[in-house]
């Protein structure tokens, strides 16, 4: 039994190389979507891309960073608001949408020194209050007309067909770029540090992890992602009512997608977003019972399947399609040895 010497640390497996390759090919194929998909499919896919973006951002914060925020709608709303404001100043409408995401990132940076020093429930509700306060402040802007809201009128410069294609591409590109960015960040030094902080902040600090700076990167990226999701939602719906954009239901959706898919796994929230998207397509029309079902499902997963659908599959079969962690593999029998994600 000299297997001990033959242990190897691996990140990639043939399966995960194939998975990343397939995903990249799929994204490339989707880029040609407007050529072969009908209008309805394009609209639905745009929505799905927004969901994947939101779920990945919330999972990056909570699943990897241990930061449960009930206030990510702050960035969703501010992104959309900033796009409207910039457009009113004469910035081109699509650049304004992108800059809206940048404004949300800037806001996240500005808030980070305060918010990231809060812990646990204090952070959760502190973020919620920040979102409420920003909602009230946005209402003060005369352009928004309080809860009446306004519209991104400048979008009317494009025909509905062109708008649909542009929105689709913008959503696909935003989702692709931010998911890839989070993937790259989590595979690097930041991934290890941030998970160390999640598991024990004092211990991580004592090992020389720069706690605040590390959390800040994640918080700003998540702010940018949620802000972009807000501007994308604005691009598809055109109208801006503050209560819709700053509503806590966005956080509820994010929690649902991340929990059901698998909190703290990279693939999980993507799967969760697809599940959420399908549930909405099939049961959304049932209204209230659909929402009751969402809440109850979230509770059930948190209690009985805390690693979510993907986390459970991963545990059982040693699957890793998009590896952000490492695995220990013995030379004989490349068994499903597990490392932490």
């Amino acid at each position, binding site marked *: 039994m000299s297997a001990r010497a033959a242990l190897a640390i691996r990140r990639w497996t043939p399966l995960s190389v194939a998975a990343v390759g397939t995903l990249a090919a799929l994204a490339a194929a989707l880029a040609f979507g407007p050529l072969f998909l009908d209008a309805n499919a394009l609209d639905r896919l745009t929505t799905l891309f927004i969901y994947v973006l939101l779920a990945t951002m919330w999972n990056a914060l909570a699943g990897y960073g241990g930061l449960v925020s*009930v206030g990510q709608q702050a960035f969703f709303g501010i992104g959309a608001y900033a796009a409207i404001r910039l457009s009113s100043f004469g910035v081109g409408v699509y650049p304004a949408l992108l800059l809206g995401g940048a404004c949300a990132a800037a806001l996240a940076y500005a808030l980070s020194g305060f918010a990231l020093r809060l812990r646990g*429930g204090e952070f959760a509700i502190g973020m919620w*209050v920040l979102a*409420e306060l920003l909602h*009230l*402040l946005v*209402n003060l802007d005369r352009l928004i007309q309080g809860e009446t809201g306004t519209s991104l009128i400048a979008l009317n410069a494009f025909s509905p067909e062109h708008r649909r294609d542009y929105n689709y591409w913008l959503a696909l590109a935003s989702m692709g770029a931010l998911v890839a960015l989070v993937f790259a960040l989590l595979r690097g030094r930041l991934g290890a540090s941030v998970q160390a902080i999640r598991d024990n902040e004092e211990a991580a600090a004592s090992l020389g992890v720069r706690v605040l700076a590390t959390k800040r990167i994640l918080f700003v990226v998540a702010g940018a992602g949620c802000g972009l999701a807000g501007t994308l939602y604005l691009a598809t719906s055109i109208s801006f009512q503050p209560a819709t954009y700053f509503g806590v239901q966005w956080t509820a959706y994010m929690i649902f997608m991340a929990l059901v898919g698998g909190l703290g796994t990279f693939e999980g929230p993507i799967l969760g977003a697809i599940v959420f998207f399908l549930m909405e397509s099939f049961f959304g029309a049932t209204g*209230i019972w659909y929402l*009751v079902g969402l809440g109850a499902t979230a509770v059930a997963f948190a*209690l009985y399947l805390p690693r979510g659908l993907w986390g459970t599959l991963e545990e059982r079969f040693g699957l890793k399609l998009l590896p952000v962690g490492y695995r220990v593999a013995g030379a004989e029998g490349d068994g499903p040895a597990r490392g932490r994600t």
Partner: protein
Amino acid sequence: MIWLNQVIQGVLLGGYYALIACGLSFMFGVMRVINLAHGDLGILAAFLVWAIVEHSGMSPFLALAIVLPLMGALGWLMQRAMLERSLRAGVLVPLLTTFGLAIVIQNLLFEQFGADTRSLAPAIGDLAFDSWSLGSQIYIGKLAGLIFAVAVVLLGGLQLFLARTGLGRAIRAVAEDPDTAELVGVDSRTVYAAAAAIAVMTVAVGGTFLGMRATFAPYAGPAQLIFAFEAVVIGGIGSMWGTLAGGVALGIAQNLGAQIAPNGFLIAGHAVFLAVLGARVAAGERGLRALFGRAA
């Protein structure tokens, strides 16, 4: 004079905030859980009281006496069926489960009672608008005064209960260290469930008074949770009386804000909360302090 009046009304409003906040503070102190469904449980109680009043025509106070044990049982059940399991899974899972529970409660209420805003004010007759006058410009509503008095009695009662009774001692012991408490024969599971039942009963009282002094609707819970949490943080989770002080500070800030601008009510409240939280962060205090660390 008008400013003095706003301060006095703010103090009275603070009594209501203390009522809805004390259960939140209590539960955090014992179980280290922030129950995100706290506000919704208060609204649920208000709806139950409203339904009983509507069907039988009895006084809301009598109806509350019927609802209280139900809410206590619900709190017990919530602890045993949900929180107990999620507590074992770390600090994040209780936040997620109680948030999910909040969504379930809100939408079930909507399904059952519809979107209309309700009020218990018509059922309490003159109490809803009677007032004592202090001078020519200041009036103190009898209901507001009653709510403040109930808050003081409830907070004082809880304090006495924790200090003097056997169960109170057990709760303090488990809050300090559940494992050691088990060693000396305290059943921590039962103690946790009792604490949850007490917390939910207090917010049921708060929700019922909300129904008497204003209106409520199925989705009104989160706003109450935020007010309760703000009161708790402003007062500092140090003692029960801190919660009252925090509620009063929040009420005064909101009323002064409303005097300055029409939408200043909420903005001023949130701003004071964030300022206090920011000051505490700057002073290096780590997280929320345990309820019994200093009070016991």
